[in-house]
């Protein structure tokens, strides 16, 4: 079968989404796909562009990876812009001279920043804010600069102002209109936003028109209408976007009066073989400058190409975001332009909150809303608006601060099945209900099955309500019990053990459980007891509770032998110790491998060999590495300022300090950490549960990252901390996690399920909202103070050593464990390779 040639021009967020959607379909194989990208790198997240200055790298922002495109079988041509489309011959020509023919063509060329034609705007210290290259140029210009001005007070302009602030500049915003964000906000909301942003140190000049930019004494002087002026070191233009339609124009496709490639409901242009999606497309005389409508067009076009019909009829432009730390939300007709529209406004000048609802002339339907300073009501109001749900009798209660008996929350049950719950991935309530009916019983399972709440995460609370409601409707109890033996969550059990000072599993089982326990509750309770009282895991009452790896303080491998991992704090090791590892491995014929956590793993130890191996390691100064435990594994580090020319802090010393502090802490799941000595991030701290990255002024703390099966980028928790505060925050975060996480829940999933998320965690840890900060620290101090190397204790205790006998009635080794050699080292023998060695009679 001959494949259809599909060419995609443009690899921005929408272009990438289009390809991602196509790749997920079986019809993918019907197309031979070529992608032209004018930029030197594949698609990245422009929505979070300003975080590039807050520590995220280009890789962090990347959406499309070259390898991914290769996996999909799509040809990706970087750094090669298409210069012409020949519609008669159905070919495109690129800057490199390459010519390619197409059957179907998708234009995803996006937009370009509009720069007002002010005389002097071409000055080399004038920038736009669109690509990573733009940001690099701004960063370079900001060195040695004091002040930066953003022209444009819209959404992107305020983002840019934030970026200038992050670069340490005194930031100003110059806006032609009388208010900020005039598209999304009404006058009142706009005024309050201005006040809040000025409180944060950004100077705002509204109703200000720039007439001239000129260089004066090596700096820039902006002259405004009315004889005012402002001296600055650099200027960033962010005065709106214009559709990038020049290719379409020269190919004589139909354009709108003010630009934009005209598309119909199927996203087709005036040429039926050419589609346009995203910010370059014009539908119903509108450009949609948000990512969600662009994604909808992308999905629509994929459907068309696969022979399905689906129509794009415009998109909701409601938006909720945080600008310079100020929450802003805008829904529907925010200005109340519809006939007969009436408004209800709530203003709290003390706390700086502005909320306004626009209702229709009957007062029954919500046409729009503006929220500044507090967007807590956004989700609920959006549902009223999108689904045209009748407002309650006293609609004002929806935006008033909660008082007893007020504001009946809109239950998930009131939403129609078509209601969109997750707008990032366009998941409806109906799809979520289907997933629950199909057997998904938890937030995590539904997220995996539907992708709901895996984008911005803003809908997670609503999603949980929908799930719980549906579970209840199905007559299923929402059961978070640990297991059949304890009708409590892990968090509740932790609390019981702590408050009642319970010291053993038996005691807890007698008081609060039933039956004899199982492989779920025993290790969980053992972990809780260890977190709280930190007794040796081999003390008699705890012996039968431990998983096999904890019991034998080594990691069982597939043939029943064990691996041994001594602690190498921060990955720093002396040559002498390295030699000992080699000698021990050689003596006991162990397979050695360097781990990802900067230590050495010794495989193939027999149960009965473990104590002897450890005696030699301990004599050489090693300690247990807890690779077997649900506990701190490693703190990875780079060499830091001691050796590296880029390092700004001593990352190794910090890694050692942290590893030695938290080693031995038993937790709901394993914990990995890393410390990087500069923003180049060689220790990969942003993929760890706790990540520390050095700055000129101290340390940035990242939390709840994860590698492995379900990678999660860590969240920036706090910046520029001194050593003491850094440790204080980590103490509190870890103990709070130990207290409140579910069994076997990594910090990443814990945070995603924590109601209130990162903001709540900050409130608990930084502001001490729950008043437990000191208690968490004391608890941690207790764990740190009672640390013992479990192996050192064990080899000194003959009773404990009795556990390490393969057979309690003979010294004969287990003949079922056999090894063969491969690449100069032992490995477990496979079936058929085992040669029985005759035992002596």
């Amino acid at each position, binding site marked *: 079968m001959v494949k259809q040639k599909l060419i995609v021009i443009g690899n921005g967020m929408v272009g990438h989404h289009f390809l991602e959607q196509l790749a997920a379909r079986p019809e993918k194989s019907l197309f031979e796909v070529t992608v032209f990208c004018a930029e030197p790198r594949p698609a990245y997240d422009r929505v979070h562009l300003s975080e590039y200055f807050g520590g995220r790298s280009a890789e962090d922002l990347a959406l499309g990876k070259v390898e991914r495109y290769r996996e999909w079988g799509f040809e990706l041509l970087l750094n090669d812009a298409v210069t012409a489309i020949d519609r008669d011959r159905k070919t495109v020509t690129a800057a490199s001279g390459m010519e390619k023919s197409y059957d179907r063509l998708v234009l995803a060329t996006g937009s370009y920043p509009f720069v007002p034609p002010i005389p002097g705007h071409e000055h080399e210290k004038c920038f736009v804010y669109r690509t990573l290259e733009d940001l690099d140029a701004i960063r370079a210009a900001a060195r040695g600069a004091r002040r930066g001005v953003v022209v444009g007070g819209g959404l992107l302009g305020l983002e840019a102002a934030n970026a200038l602030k992050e670069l340490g500049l005194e930031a100003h915003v110059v806006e032609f209109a009388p208010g900020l964000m005039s598209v999304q906000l009404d006058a009142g909301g706009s005024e309050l936003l201005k006040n809040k942003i000025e409180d944060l140190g950004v100077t705002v000049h509204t109703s200000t028109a720039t007439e001239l930019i000129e260089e004066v004494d090596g700096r820039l002087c902006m002259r405004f209408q009315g004889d005012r002026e402002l001296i600055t070191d650099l200027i960033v233009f962010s005065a709106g976007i214009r559709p990038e339609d020049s290719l379409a124009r020269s190919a004589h496709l139909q354009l709108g009066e003010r630009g934009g490639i005209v598309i119909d409901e199927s996203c087709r242009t005036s040429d039926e073989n050419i589609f346009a999606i995203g910010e370059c497309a014009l539908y119903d005389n509108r450009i949609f400058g948000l990512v969600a409508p662009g994604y909808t067009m992308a999905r629509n076009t994929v459907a068309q190409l696969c022979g399905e019909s689906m129509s794009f009829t415009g998109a909701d432009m409601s938006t909720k975001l945080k600008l310079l730390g100020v929450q802003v939300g805008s829904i529907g007709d925010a200005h109340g332009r519809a006939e007969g529209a009436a408004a209800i406004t709530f203003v709290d000048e003390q706390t700086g909150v502005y909320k306004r609802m626009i209702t229709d002339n009957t007062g029954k339907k919500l046409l729009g809303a503006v929220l500044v300073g507090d967007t807590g009501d956004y989700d609920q109001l959006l549902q009223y608006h999108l689904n045209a749900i009748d407002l309650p009798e006293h609609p004002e209660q929806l935006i008033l601060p909660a008082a007893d008996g007020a504001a009946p929350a809109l239950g998930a049950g009131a939403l129609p099945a078509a209601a969109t719950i997750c707008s990032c991935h366009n998941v409806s309530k109906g799809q979520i209900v289907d997933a629950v009916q199909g057997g998904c019983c938890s937030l995590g399972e539904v997220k995996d099955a539907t992708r709901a709440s895996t984008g911005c995460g803003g809908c997670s609370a609503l999603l949980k309500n929908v799930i719980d409601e549906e579970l209840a409707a199905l007559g299923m109890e929402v059961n978070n019990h640990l297991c059949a033996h304890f009708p409590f969550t892990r968090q509740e059990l932790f609390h019981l053990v702590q408050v009642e000072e319970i010291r053993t599993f038996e005691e807890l089982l007698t008081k609060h459980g039933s039956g*004899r326990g199982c492989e779920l509750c025993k290790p969980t309770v053992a972990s809780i007891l260890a977190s709280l009282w930190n007794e040796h895991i081999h003390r008699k009452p705890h012996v039968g509770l431990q998983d096999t790896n904890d019991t034998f303080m080594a990691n069982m491998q597939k043939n*029943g032998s064990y691996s041994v991992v001594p602690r190498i704090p921060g990955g720093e090791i002396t040559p002498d110790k390295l030699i000992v590892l080699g000698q021990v491995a050689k003596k006991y014929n162990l397979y050695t491998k360097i781990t990802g956590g900067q230590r050495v793993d010794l495989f193939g130890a027999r149960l009965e060999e473990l104590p002897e191996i450890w005696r030699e390691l301990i004599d050489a100064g090693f300690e247990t590495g807890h690779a077997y435990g649900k506990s701190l594994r490693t703190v990875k580090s780079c060499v830091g300022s001691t050796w590296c020319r880029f390092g700004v802090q001593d990352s190794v010393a910090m890694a050692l300090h942290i590893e030695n502090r938290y080693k031995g802490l038993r937790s709901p799941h394993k914990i990995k950490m890393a410390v990087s000595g500069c923003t180049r991030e060689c220790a990969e701290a942003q993929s760890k549960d706790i990540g520390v990255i050095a700055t000129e002024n101290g340390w940035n703390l990242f939390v709840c990252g994860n590698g492995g099966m379900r990678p999660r980028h860590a969240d920036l928790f706090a910046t520029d901390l001194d050593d003491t505060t850094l440790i204080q925050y980590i103490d509190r975060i870890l103990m709070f996690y130990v207290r409140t996480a579910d069994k076997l829940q990594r910090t990443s999933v814990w945070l995603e399920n924590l109601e209130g998320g990162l903001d709540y965690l900050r409130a608990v840890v930084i502001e001490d909202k729950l008043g437990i900060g000191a208690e968490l620290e004391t608890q941690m101090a207790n764990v740190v103070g009672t640390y013992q190397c479990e192996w050192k204790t064990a080899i000194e205790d003959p009773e404990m050593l009795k556990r390490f006998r393969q057979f309690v009635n003979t010294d004969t080794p287990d003949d079922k464990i056999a090894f063969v050699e491969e690449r100069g080292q032992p490995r477990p023998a496979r079936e058929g390779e085992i040669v029985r060695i005759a035992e002596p009679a």
Partner: protein
Amino acid sequence: MNQIAITHTQWQPICQRSDLVADSGVCVLTGDRTLRTVSAAPKSIALFFIPHAEPQLYAIDNWDPLAGAGVIARGLLAEIDGELTVASPLYKHHYRLRDGICLEDNSVRLGTYAAAFDGDKVLIATEPGNH
């Protein structure tokens, strides 16, 4: 079939009471190496001692056929729907202590053996399933 096979329960002292670990397992090697019979060949058997249960002592094959390793003695004791089981450490299959049946795949069954205390001695009967 095999004429020399022992067909009646043969009690064999296997270890001391003090070798056992309460609420956990240990492993023993059985078999009289002077008898060349299949049933009497050396065999590793897991012993579980559960002081509060009735019976207190369980003997079951140490070899986990689903994992392909001799690791049952190092598994965690788990009560599932009122039945005592051991969760094998590698892939967490549950084997019922009283009859060796695997709860996840009841076509798989480990050998179980009678076990008893005789003063400080632990005895087991080497014929599987004869109790």
